[in-house]
Structure formats: structure tokens, C-alpha cells
């Protein structure tokens, strides 16, 4: 009798709020993340008759048309990473160690260029340096022909300007948390200043630098919009994935599936290297005394400020270009002299659906992300168990899946019974939630780690159930972290192109999709107006983020 009671009691205790939440999320993630991934892997190994085949992989690795894109992708990613380090590290060193003017402005500009819609860079640089670009024409008049922006060089330039902020932000963080004594010790031991930088400073920040470089590498490997717009003949893997899928009408995504597997394999490999080789050597440091900020002579100070401002300005330039061109008068695809609001008029007549779509979908996605992100980060941080670390792994996995690939996975999985979602708004929202939730989870978790378990225990033991305690106490205390994370999720969601372009249908096209199609149709004016809406929303959201996070949460 006693035994039966206690078994019943144990079962009852097992199905408490948190365990139910845990199982619910595992089921949802299995359906919406694991199943689509396996569906695409499965598809890549079977032909249309359902027989096992390695044909698609064989084709990929033997035909230059296919494997060249992998080589191209790797070339682009490696060179972008190298250049981003070359730009980001010196810039971070200068702003964190010297008293240059306007540090806050430099930081803000750099963060804004990182968070800007991904394809705005490509678009704006085409506006400036493209065939009919503003600067190209200007130089043409004085008899200088500019080298073409399209292709490899253009992709690298746009990527570097867009992604070096990762390196910059990671490294500035590390630079200002090196304890002063470390460099003083090196100096004390007779090391010259330059030698000190290379023998002490750089090695200490190496793991952080590597983490930033990996972010650059992964983002440039996964990005679809930029190479699509500016690459022209120079084809990279995500673009090929898109074209293959679109050409395989009827949704037989076999070749696209094989390509997706290759690209996910590459990014997973890179991430694993980062996790197991580089992060092992992490020198955790809390700067008791932050490094000295060197006072420069006025001439040097102005020179260094000018350099930093120039880089930040060039990175931010695309957003200015977009906003300005959105007000320029157009005649068909051609910009003409004078300013007007006609581009805006056009989009409000023709494309208002896209605007409402973007905001409706993003708001729904963010609402889900906030609730799920809070509960999930709580499970991961406070209820450590094997199942929950598996949950953690699942949630962070979308980091290595390019948006276009995730899009194909979802389509392959949900275009037939039992679950048909293709063409619906739901599939876009689900893709956004999966792709953008890590931002919220990461910043919520960071805050959760600082909440002592006894705070919750105090509430429970005063008679409030664990579930109510979560909502009354923990959730309140997590709020700043959740909110800052949610703003980042929000910014990246409204700007999302790569998964939207795979998943949209006529009725569910978003602003990003519309910008893309408008650019393809050469209606640059309307594209600029749409992009301005995104840019302005992004900037306002970032300002909100700064205000909410009070500088305690980093955007990266």
C-alpha cells in the first residue's frame, strides 16, 4: 500500500510543469527541426523511384559546374575571414587602447552595419559602383573606367564590410578585459611595445578572435542574398542550392538535398573545430584593472580617429545610400534628377501586403520566441540533465544551417501529408522561430546564470508552486536579458531573406523577398524604399536594444 502510493506519487511528481514543458519542446523540435533535416538527408540518397543511390553526390564531386561552387564558397569565406580580421583587429586595438574621438559613434555605426539587412550592402554598392553606378558614372566623366564590382571581388568587398564587425566587436571585448598587469609584466620583463602586442596581447585574445573569425566564416558561407545580387557569373553554393531547387520543379529536391548536406557538413566541421580545438584554450579573464587607454598627441589622435571613422562610415554607407535613393525620382528602372516620394507611393499601393506580412510574421515569431526562449533557457540553465543538454544542442543547431537550406528542409518535409504547410504563413513563422531563437536563448541564459537558485527556493518554500515561481520571480528577473535577446531576434527576423525566399508564396512574400524581386526586375527605386523601411526599423530597434540592455548585453 505504502509502496503503491509512493510510486503513484513519483509518477505524479515526474509530470510536473517543467518536465511537461521539456517533453513538449522535444516533440516540437523533433517535428520541426530534426524531421526536416533527416528528410533532406534521406532525399539526397534516394532517386525519384525511391531507390538508394549515391548519384547526386557523385555528380556533385565530378562535375565542375557543381564542385566549383563549393571551391568558390570556400574561397569567398576564407578570404572574407582573412580580410575581416585584417580590418577588425587593428580597429579594435585602436578604439580600445587609444583616446580616439567619438568611440561611441564608431561603435554604433559598426553595430548598425552588422545588423543591417543582409543584401542592402550588395544593392547599395551596385548603386555606387555598378555598371550604371553613381561613382562609376562620375569617374567615367573624367575618363577613368572603374573595375567592375560584379563577381568575386564584389562579393568579398561587400561581405568584408558587412562582417568585419564580428571580429571588431569580439576583439574589442577581449582587449578591454585583459588585466593591465599582464601587459605591465611583459613590459617589466623588457619587452618592447610592438613585441608585447604580438607575444602577449594577441595570443591572449586569440580564442576570442577565433570565435569572431568563425562567425565571419559561417555567415559568409551561408549568405545567399549578396552573392545572388552581386555575384553574377561567380556562383557560390547557397546560390546553387536555390537554383537547383527552383529548377527541379515538382519539389524533388534530390540534388538540392545533396548540396544542402555538403554545405551543412562544411559549417558543422568548422563549428566543431572551433568548439573542440580553439575554445579549449580559452583564457578567462576578469580585468581587475582594465588596460590603460593611451593619451595621444593631437595630430595622432586626429589621424587615428579619421581612420576609424572612415572604416565605420564606409561600412555604414550602404544604409545611407538606400535611404537617399529611396527619395530619388525614378523613371522606370532609371533614376532621374530630383527628389520625390513616388517610390514610397508605389510600394504602399503595390507592395503594402509585403510590409504587413513582414511585420505580422515577425511579431508572431517574436511572441513565440519570447515565451519559448524563456522556458527553454530556463530548462537548459537551471534544470541540467542529459535530455536538456540534448535540447540545448538541438536549439543551437540552426546556427550551422544556412537559411536557404533550412527552407528546403522545411519544404521537403511539409509539402505532403501528414503535415502540409508549404505556401502558408505558418511555415515562414516556424522557420523564423527556429532560426532566430538562439539570440534570445543566449542572452536569457546569460542572465539566468547570475540568478542564484536560492531565490527560487525562497519563493517555493513560501508556498508558491515552481510554475508560479517561474512566472512571478524568475521571469521578472530574466526580463532584461529576454527582451534584449528578443530585439536581436526581431531585427534579424524582419531582415531575413534566405529562408523566406525558399518558403514564400505569392500571398506570403515579405519585404526582403520583395526587395529581391524588385532588384531583379531593376525597379531600384521601390527596392530602396522597401529597404529603407527595414533599415529605419532596424536602427530604431537597435536604439531600443541599447536602452533596454543598458550596455550589459552584447549584440554578438
Amino acid at each position, binding site marked *: 500500500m505504502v509502496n503503491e*502510493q*509512493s510510486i503513484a*506519487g*513519483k509518477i505524479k*511528481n515526474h509530470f510536473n510543469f517543467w518536465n511537461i514543458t521539456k517533453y513538449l519542446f522535444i516533440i516540437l523540435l523533433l517535428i520541426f527541426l530534426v524531421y526536416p533535416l533527416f528528410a533532406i538527408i534521406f532525399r539526397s540518397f534516394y532517386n525519384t523511384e525511391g531507390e538508394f543511390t549515391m548519384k547526386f553526390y557523385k555528380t556533385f564531386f565530378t562535375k565542375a559546374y557543381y564542385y566549383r561552387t563549393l571551391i568558390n564558397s570556400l574561397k569567398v569565406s576564407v578570404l572574407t575571414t582573412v580580410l575581416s580580421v585584417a580590418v577588425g583587429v587593428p580597429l579594435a586595438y585602436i578604439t580600445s587602447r587609444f583616446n580616439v574621438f567619438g568611440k561611441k559613434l564608431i561603435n554604433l555605426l559598426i553595430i548598425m552595419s552588422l545588423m543591417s539587412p543582409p543584401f542592402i550592402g550588395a544593392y547599395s554598392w551596385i548603386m555606387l559602383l555598378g555598371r550604371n553606378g553613381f561613382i562609376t558614372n562620375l569617374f567615367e566623366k573624367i575618363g577613368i573606367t572603374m573595375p567592375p564590382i560584379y563577381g568575386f571581388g564584389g562579393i568579398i568587398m561587400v561581405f568584408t564590410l558587412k562582417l568585419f564587425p564580428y571580429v571588431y566587436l569580439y576583439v574589442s571585448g577581449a582587449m578591454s578585459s585583459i588585466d593591465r598587469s599582464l601587459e605591465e609584466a611583459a613590459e617589466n620583463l623588457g619587452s618592447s611595445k610592438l613585441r608585447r602586442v604580438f607575444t602577449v596581447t594577441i595570443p591572449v585574445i586569440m580564442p576570442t578572435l577565433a570565435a569572431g573569425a568563425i562567425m565571419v566564416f559561417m555567415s559568409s558561407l551561408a549568405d545567399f542574398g549578396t552573392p545572388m545580387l552581386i555575384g553574377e557569373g561567380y556562383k557560390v553554393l547557397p546560390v546553387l542550392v536555390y537554383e537547383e531547387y527552383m529548377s527541379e520543379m515538382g519539389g524533388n529536391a534530390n540534388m538540392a538535398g545533396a548540396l544542402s548536406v555538403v554545405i551543412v557538413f562544411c559549417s558543422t566541421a568548422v563549428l566543431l573545430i572551433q568548439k573542440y580545438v580553439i575554445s579549449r584554450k580559452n583564457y578567462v579573464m576578469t580585468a581587475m584593472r582594465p588596460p590603460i587607454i593611451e593619451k595621444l598627441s593631437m595630430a595622432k589622435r586626429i589621424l587615428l580617429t579619421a581612420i576609424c571613422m572612415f572604416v565605420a562610415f564606409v561600412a555604414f554607407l550602404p544604409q545611407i545610400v538606400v535611404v537617399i535613393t529611396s527619395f530619388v525620382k525614378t523613371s522606370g528602372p532609371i533614376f532621374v534628377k530630383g527628389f520625390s516620394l513616388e517610390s514610397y507611393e508605389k510600394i504602399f499601393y503595390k507592395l503594402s501586403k509585403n510590409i504587413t506580412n513582414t511585420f505580422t510574421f515577425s511579431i508572431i515569431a517574436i511572441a513565440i520566441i519570447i515565451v519559448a526562449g524563456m522556458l527553454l533557457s530556463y530548462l537548459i540553465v537551471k534544470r541540467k540533465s542529459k535530455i536538456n543538454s540534448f535540447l540545448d544542442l538541438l536549439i543551437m543547431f540552426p546556427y550551422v544551417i544556412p537559411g536557404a537550406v533550412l527552407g528546403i528542409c522545411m519544404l521537403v518535409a511539409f509539402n505532403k501529408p501528414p503535415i502540409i504547410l508549404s505556401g502558408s504563413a505558418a511555415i515562414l513563422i516556424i522557420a523564423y522561430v527556429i532560426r532566430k531563437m538562439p539570440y534570445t536563448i543566449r542572452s536569457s541564459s546569460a542572465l539566468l546564470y547570475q540568478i*542564484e537558485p*536560492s*531565490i527560487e*527556493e*525562497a*519563493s*517555493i*518554500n*513560501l*508556498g*508558491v*508552486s*515552481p510554475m*508560479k*515561481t517561474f512566472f512571478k*520571480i524568475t521571469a*521578472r*528577473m530574466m526580463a532584461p536579458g529576454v527582451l534584449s535577446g528578443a530585439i536581436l531576434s526581431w531585427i534579424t527576423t524582419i531582415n531575413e531573406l534566405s529562408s523566406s525566399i525558399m518558403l514564400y508564396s505569392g500571398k506570403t512574400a515579405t519585404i526582403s523577398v520583395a526587395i529581391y524581386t524588385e532588384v531583379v526586375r531593376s525597379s531600384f527605386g521601390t527596392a530602396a524604399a522597401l529597404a529603407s523601411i527595414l533599415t529605419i526599423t532596424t536602427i530604431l530597434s537597435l536604439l531600443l536594444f541599447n536602452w533596454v540592455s543598458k550596455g550589459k548585453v552584447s549584440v554578438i
Partner: protein
Amino acid sequence: MSHSVKVCNVVKKYDDFVAVDKISCEIREGEFFTLLGPSGCGKTTLLRMIAGFNSIDDGEIYFGDKVINQIEAHKRDIGMVFQNYAIFPHMTVYDNVAYGLKARKVPKDQIEVKVMEALDLVQIKNLKDRKPSELSGGQQQRVALARAIVIKPGVLLMDEPLSNLDAKLRVQMRTIIKKLQKDLGITTVYVTHDQEEALAISDRIAIMKSGKIMQLDTPADIYKRPRNTFVAGFIGTSNFLDVQVRYDDKMNTFIKVEGGLEYPVKLKRKLETAILSIRPEQFIINGPDGRGIPGEIQMYTFLGDFANYEIKLPGGQVVEANEYTKDIDFVRAIGDRIRLDFDPEKISLFDQEGTEAYLW
């Protein structure tokens, strides 16, 4: 209302490590009961099992005559004070204290009366509208205490509540806690590693080591009659000396420290040798011509009301002995030869395994 807590053969395991090893004890209604022991002895684990934050792997815990093993933590009606206070940072002092009452659906007008009463008891009525970030450690401690007692819990649990306070405040707070506990008559389980605190505050103390209770007694008995060498060494300072045991034809028993006198004692069982435990103040220091074990003063520390000496015995062992300032005219110097004697009634004897051997 307050009730007793009965712990019966309770076990807590973490994989292979047994944190609480078949502990049994009864905490009486209204009693101030302390779990005392070095870190890792299982005292906090046991406290958290009573609170419901650690599951009970085996055995039962009773509140009154009701088994509470399966009752969830929030239904156990417990007040708990945490080591780091665990004040809700986003609420005012008033809201912190009112929290448990609101959970109990106490009518609003009564909440106010009760909260103010509790704040008054811990003397922080004037701070009711402050946020926790504006309070000192001692003030936060009082909020935590008020929050725990305002709900009139069946049992009050305290997990090293004073360990984050400075020495002076610690003494002040412990007096407040003791007085409050007596006035309210709440059954209290208190965890600490500070023996002085335990002796000062408790009705009874359970001294724990490696998941077991080594001795459960009143503070005076624990100090005066340690049941094993662990307790003798853990509480206060004890000198341990090897002694020879001799039996005469009439089976009278005598003990003798090398170089000292022989004293008659009664032992629980027959032993060849024993361990004598004696506290520094139990030594009687005689001049070189007096009686007792010969020794030489190696070091002295004058502490106002008494002087502490380190004395080297012929075998090379160094013992500590105290002499009260009021009993002496001069402080002895390093190198002075003395003799150490003691009252055989006041010492403790243990067998070689460290368990008590003296027959009282």
C-alpha cells in the same frame, strides 16, 4: 502551528557518494536544533531534504506524525532563511515580506498588519519601502528573517544565515534570532559550521561528520562530555594524550600519562591503552616542584582574561594549557619548567578507535 520534525533512517546518495547516511533524530516542538559540522558533512543536504529541495532516497521524514516524503516543497509550510538571503531583488522590503502571505491568500488588510508586525519584530519597520539593493547585508538578513516568520511556518529552517555578516553583526543577529525563536516558539533547524554560534544559540546540537550524526546533545554536554575524539577535537580545543591502563588484583583501573601520576578511573570495558582528551583550561599548571607531568613552556600568548601556553612534554608532544589571569600573579615565561596536572573527573577517555570509553 509549530510541530516536531522526526527524521527516520534518512538516506541521500549522489551516485556512489552517500551524503546523508541513515540519519535518525527527533527535533522537538518549539526546539532550537542545530546541525553542526565541517563542510561536506551533509548538514545542508539534510536541511534541504526537510525543506523539500532534495529528494529523500530512503527513510522517512515526519512533520508531527505525518510522513512528508512525497509532499512538494511549496506545500510543506516551511519558513527558510538562506545563506545569501535570497531577497527578491525586484520587490520592496514590504513586498518581500508579504509574498508568502499573498500566496496563502491572506486578506489584504491582514497582510498589512502581519507584515508590519514582522518588520517590527526584526526592527526594520522604517525600511519597508526600500529596494533590496539599498540595504546592507545585516538589513537584508532581517528582511529574510521577517519573510520567513511572517507566515508562522510549521518549522523554520536556517542555512548558515549569519556566515556572510561581519563578526560584530553576527553576534548581534544571533541574539535577535534566538530571542525571536523563543518568543514565537517556532521549531527551528539551524545549520552552521561555526561551533561558537552553535553553542550560543542552540537548545540541542547534532554534530555531523560524513553523513552521520556523531553526537546529539545540549551545548554544555557536547562541550563537557564529547562522545568521541571527533567531537572532542571539533568543539573547542582538546589535547589528546596517550595513556597506559593498569589493573590491580582487585580489578581497580588506573590510568597514567608518561611522567605523570596514576589516577583511578572507571572504564566501560577492558583496554590496554586509551586516549585521554583534555581541554586547555582543564590543565592545572604547577611549579617545577609540584605534581604532574613535567613540561617546558615553548610559547605563550596573553589574551587578557587568560594566558595560553604551548607546553612541550618529555615525549616531544606539544599541548596547550590555559591559565586565567584572575588566578595568577604573573605570566610564565618561555623556557619555564612546569608540571601539568588534571582532575580525572573532568577529562574524557577514548579507546584507540576514538569512541568513548569512560564510564560516567
